[in-house]
């Protein structure tokens, strides 16, 4: 198992280089001059421009800029953003915000998804199953932007059940509304996947065998059907979780949650290659780690794919 983990970690290094290089190249290729974007149409004195360019290595060739950014990231010298913010401070502030939001949102999504998925899977074609299908179609059709503003207006402005925006009221209150909306918009996919997986498993031979040898219905459900039906769901959840360091850009903006998503958005807006690469690296590392955990968890659920 240790060899497996090491192998995965080593394989991640070249992928990481490719990913960061690719992201940096994309930012670099964006049209427009970053310092000009920062200044708007106001003219910038030549000396000021030269000083800023030198500070952010903007005059260097692409590959030098990339290497300097990577060096800063690997040595922990994050420096400041174009706007003057200390990047290490920003990460300290923003990572907890994003973690709180995504974990809470995922908790909502999984609870709803597992509950409705299992129920619908076992009671096929019942009213819960049918409503679930309808709800899935409706929810998947609602654009996030509309749902977030509508929820903010209804529950924040009109009913005043939740704060409209910001993190002043702390965890969990300030995060509840955005997490609920993300969860409700997202649970349908999980529920449908789980339902289908259960339906397939229920008809498998080993389930028939279990029934034939006279096992109780409850035991068949919880010991034989569910562990097998959960396998694809674990993958789904893993991918979901792994993406969380990307931050929820639109949600964070609308609910004014100062997380990584807003940071990423600002950085892309200003073409701050260094910050974008730093955030991508964070997202990449979390992606690799969580995927590794999922693979190990797979082995626990299904001995056939054990990697030891």
């Amino acid at each position, binding site marked *: 198992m240790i060899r497996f983990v090491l192998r995965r970690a080593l394989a991640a290094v070249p992928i990481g280089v490719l990913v960061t290089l690719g992201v940096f190249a994309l930012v670099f290729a964006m049209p427009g001059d970053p310092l*000009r974007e920062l200044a708007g149409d106001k003219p910038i*004195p030549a000396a000021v421009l030269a000083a800023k360019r030198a500070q952010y290595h903007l005059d260097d060739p692409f590959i030098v800029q990339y290497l300097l950014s990577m060096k800063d990231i690997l040595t922990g010298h994050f420096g400041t953003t174009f706007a003057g913010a200390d990047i290490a401070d920003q990460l300290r502030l923003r990572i907890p915000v994003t973690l709180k939001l995504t974990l809470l949102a995922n908790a909502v999504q999984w609870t709803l998804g597992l509950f409705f998925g299992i129920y619908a899977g076992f009671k096929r074609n019942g009213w819960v199953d049918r409503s679930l299908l309808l709800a899935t179609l409706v929810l998947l059709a609602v654009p996030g932007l509309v749902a977030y503003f509508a929820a903010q207006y209804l529950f924040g402005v009109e009913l*005043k059940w939740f704060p*409209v925006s910001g993190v002043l009221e702390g965890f969990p209150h300030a995060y509840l509304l955005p997490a609920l909306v993300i969860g409700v918009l997202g649970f349908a996919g999980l529920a449908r996947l789980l339902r289908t997986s259960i339906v397939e498993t229920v008809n498998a031979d080993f389930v028939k065998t279990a029934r034939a040898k006279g096992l109780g219905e409850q035991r068949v459900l919880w010991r034989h059907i569910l562990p097998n039906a959960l396998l694809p769901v674990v993958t789904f959840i893993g991918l979901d979780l792994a993406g969380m360091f990307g931050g929820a850009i639109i949600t964070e903006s609308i609910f004014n949650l100062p997380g990584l998503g807003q940071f990423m958005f600002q950085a892309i807006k200003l073409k701050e290659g260094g910050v974008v690469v730093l955030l991508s690296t964070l997202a990449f590392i979390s992606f690799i780690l969580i995927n590794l955990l999922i693979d190990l968890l797979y082995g626990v659920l299904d001995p056939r794919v054990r990697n030891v």
Partner: protein
Amino acid sequence: MGVALGLALVLASCGDGKSSGSGGGSGSKSEVIAIAADPLEYINPLNENGSPGIQVAMAMFAPLVTTDPETGKLQNVMADSVTPDKTSQTWTIKLKAGNTFQNGQPLTAKDYVDSWNMTAMGSNAWKNNGFFSKVDGYDALNPPTPDGATPKPTAVKALSGLKQIDDLTFSVKLKVPFSQFGLTLQYLGLAPLPEEVRKNPDAYKRKPIGNGPFKLAADWNAGDDIKLAKWDGYKGPLVPQADEITYRFIPNADTAYNEFLAGNVDFVDVPPTKVKSFKTDAPDQWVTSISSGANYLVIPAWDARFKNPKLRHAFSMAIDRKAFADLVGLSEPAKGLVAPDMAGYRDNACKYCDFDAAKAKQLLQEAGGFSGPVNINYNTSSATGQIFAEAIGNMLRQNLGLTVKYTGKQGSEIGELADSRKLDGLRFSGWGHDYPSIEDYLTPMFKSNGDANFAGYANPALDAVLAKGDAEPDPEKAIKLYQQAEDIALEDMPLIPLYTKSNAYLHSAKIEPRVSKFVGVSALWATFK
């Protein structure tokens, strides 16, 4: 649409996001002002030229002079007198005695001279460095830097044109006479820093020491609202009523608007998306004011096809400005090249701004027509860029029979192309003044190599008239000269005036923002009910 309006708007209509609330009789007067921008990372007026930063600095720092919101006349704040010599080239500034910084140190002429020298030093890379380019000795502090090199501090540390005369008096010698220099001194980006901050500005990024009506009420860490409390040491004039002000940064303007509707903030800008609905969303709780700026179409001087002024006039007269202003919303058709709230504005300045399709066609014919399609560039990061471009395009197509195409690009890319004279066709742009003088429209927009001369226009006759105005000490006569410059620009028409926009703001019932036709809307100076 790449509207420039940086500082100017802040000065002119500081209402961008100040509000006040509380009231309730006996309690202290406090207000929460929403700013729809990313949170500030430092407060230092000398290194700040963005609207949110200047807005917050305005509460904590006081300028030398300011525009009286009642009369529009210049009024002394920290200055006791600002006196030009006969040629308007050397200006003597005398400070009022008895003013101090918020750390108790007396405010002296040395504080101004040293703070300004720091800003003028190119290697410090402070954003208001450019202001001092008019001052004698600027070039010595800003030598050309080779590409890719970091500017080094120069051996010369001080502007030769800046001289301290005594504790409260200093003088500024400019490179050339400039009659409007007194007006420029109201820019808040010239506020002084006390000695301890000057020694180590980075250490004071988040604990500024000002000389204005408010000081920090609590520690201000990254991610916090900015909480300010009244500072008794500020002697006025124009002392705001509020005792406490909180600036809350809400980058999403629609979210800020919802926070207002929920009653959590006292003052907010109406975002473009709510222009149609704000009057019903918050009846009796809105104010509007004309925003000091001009919005126009830029005609590239580097494209020979646009060279004939008659063709430019034809384009101008083919545009139905009333319809276009309605499309923009909260706007009025432009009637000249300067903002309507400026002294010296004439509402009949432009002879070619009335919509007249027949006349336009005739002018186009006299000019020999136009070859090829007209390209209209628009900013893709603006929600309305494409809509506005197509509206103008349709008018040119229908009224002049031209073919039109559209190119969407990032604003910064359009700017870069225009700077290198490679942009094909028309673009939208705008300008707002840094100090309230029509000179601050005409010089940047039309002087050869002016800061906002986006058309690349040059006319020696116009430059000469501007120079005359700059050297004219009598304000009335100076305005007459500047108006001549505007007339020349309208004849040559490097820019086609389009519209002037109003800004709208919402305020809670407990405050009444100050509305002035000279300086716009301000919640910092709101009246508490």
